[in-house]
């Protein structure tokens, strides 16, 4: 499906992305229960951090990612009722929320049915980009950040007892642990040169936000940013599985062209610009 099919999003402002991603077991754990999923052609990016131990945690995070992808890619049946709280969201945000709710149900049902998977669960942070609008949904303590001109803004609020300090490892919400889950959704607009970063707590517990921001400012290339951040988390002990997805927003062809002509007409063209 093309991004233009999404209802409610005015066409005419499509952005391109460059994507980097890496996941790593870290230095302490023996298993990697994190997963990431990248569908740049759909604008969908997910990070899930499984819990529940061998092998249930891996199963839960993978189920979460795949079922969200499946739900988001499926053609919506017309007349799907929207709940009252949904009304203020764009259709794609509502669909992303339903996809996450649905994945909760799948994992919960499987955990109930298979005793050796009892108690499995997963966090999720997902970004679905449509035009210049990003819908971000999350459950648990995996985070989304927006980097814009050297400022790193946290887009999600951890569903843990406290975001820092002694209780940050106490999760209040996770997929698959209860029959229903509340999903936090927010919308934001992005511009060329913005960076979206999705990560599991293995990154944020090991690497300070200022260091993350510096790495983006210095490296710029999404894959190099991911590699550097995972290496840093490991150098800080790698206490947990580490997953990082970085989406760099690049202007559309139209944007690059108009930017270039504006600079030309303004007489501000620099050697570095014309080379790139």
């Amino acid at each position, binding site marked *: 499906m093309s991004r233009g099919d999404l209802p*409610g999003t*005015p066409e005419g402002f499509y952005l391109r992305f460059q994507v980097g991603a890496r996941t790593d077991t870290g230095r302490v*754990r023996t298993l990697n229960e994190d997963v990431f999923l990248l569908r740049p052609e759909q604008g969908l990016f997910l990070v899930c951090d499984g*819990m*529940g131990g061998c092998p249930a945690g891996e199963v839960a995070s993978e189920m979460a990612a795949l079922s969200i992808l499946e739900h988001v890619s499926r053609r919506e049946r017309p007349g799907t009722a929207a709940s009252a709280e949904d009304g203020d969201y764009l259709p794609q945000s509502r669909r992303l929320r339903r996809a996450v709710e649905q994945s909760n149900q799948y994992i919960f049902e499987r955990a109930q049915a298979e005793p050796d998977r009892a108690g499995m669960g997963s966090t999720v942070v997902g970004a679905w980009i449509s035009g*210049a609008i990003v819908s971000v949904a999350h459950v648990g303590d995996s985070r989304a950040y927006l980097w814009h001109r050297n400022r790193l803004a946290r887009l999600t609020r951890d569903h843990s007892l*406290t975001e820092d*300090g002694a209780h940050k490892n*106490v999760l209040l919400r*996770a997929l698959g642990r209860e029959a229903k889950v509340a999903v936090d959704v927010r919308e934001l607009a992005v511009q060329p040169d913005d960076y979206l970063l999705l990560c599991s707590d293995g990154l944020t517990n090991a690497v300070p936000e200022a260091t993350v921001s510096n790495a983006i400012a210095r490296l710029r290339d999404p894959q190099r940013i991911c590699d550097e951040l995972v290496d840093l988390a490991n150098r800080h002990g790698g206490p947990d599985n580490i997953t990082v997805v970085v989406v760099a927003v690049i202007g559309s062809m139209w944007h690059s062209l108009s930017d270039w002509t504006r600079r030309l007409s303004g007489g501000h063209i620099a050697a570095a610009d014309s080379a790139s």
Partner: protein
Amino acid sequence: MPRLILRLDDREVNRWSLGPVVTIGRLPDNTIVIDSSAASGHHACAALEGHDFVLEDLASTNGTFVNDTRVNRHTLRNGDVIRIGDHTLEFDAKHGGDVDARQAAERIVSNPGDTVFLDADKHQALLAMLQEAGADGQALDSNKVGVLRVLKGPADRPEYHLQAHTSFIGKADTSLVRLKGWFTPRIAIVITRSDQGYTATRMRSTAKINGEPLTGHCDLKEGDVLRVGGLTLEFGFSR
């Protein structure tokens, strides 16, 4: 799975089910963080060896004590009390050994390592406790809705309510604030709403905010004046 119960002055601070390796210390990268200057950055660790958990002091400054005896290496037995500074950690080897314990009322379940999950009831109790302590941040009152009041220019309404999480200003049909004119972009500005407030993001326009060109993302404050496509709009909140 055995667990460790952290106490300070006989008050329970936290508890963890043990994974194969548990690190204890002051720095945030430990599995069990002890917020005390008496604890070294990486103070001690406990690792599964065969069927036993073995506690090891990591050359800490103030030492690791088990049942009031300083130890370098110690095989943990049920009921052992580890002391680090003023904090104690009780080793509970029996926990979770049978189905009854696993279905115990408090339902704190965790993966090997450190993430603990709380069910809804426990969550409510703890939230109440935290709110009493004033730990809740400054969130935007969800009843306060942003408004763009038209100060000047040809608009179809005197004011626009920013009820949606995303509102568009531009020529597109789906825009909340419809702009006219040949060279007007389909989307000039996007205004998004989160629990921290409203943010205006320039898409394709030469908009001004308080007389300065709007570039990037701008967090809106009461009284901000936005000029775009012949309209002058003032941002505020409705009651």
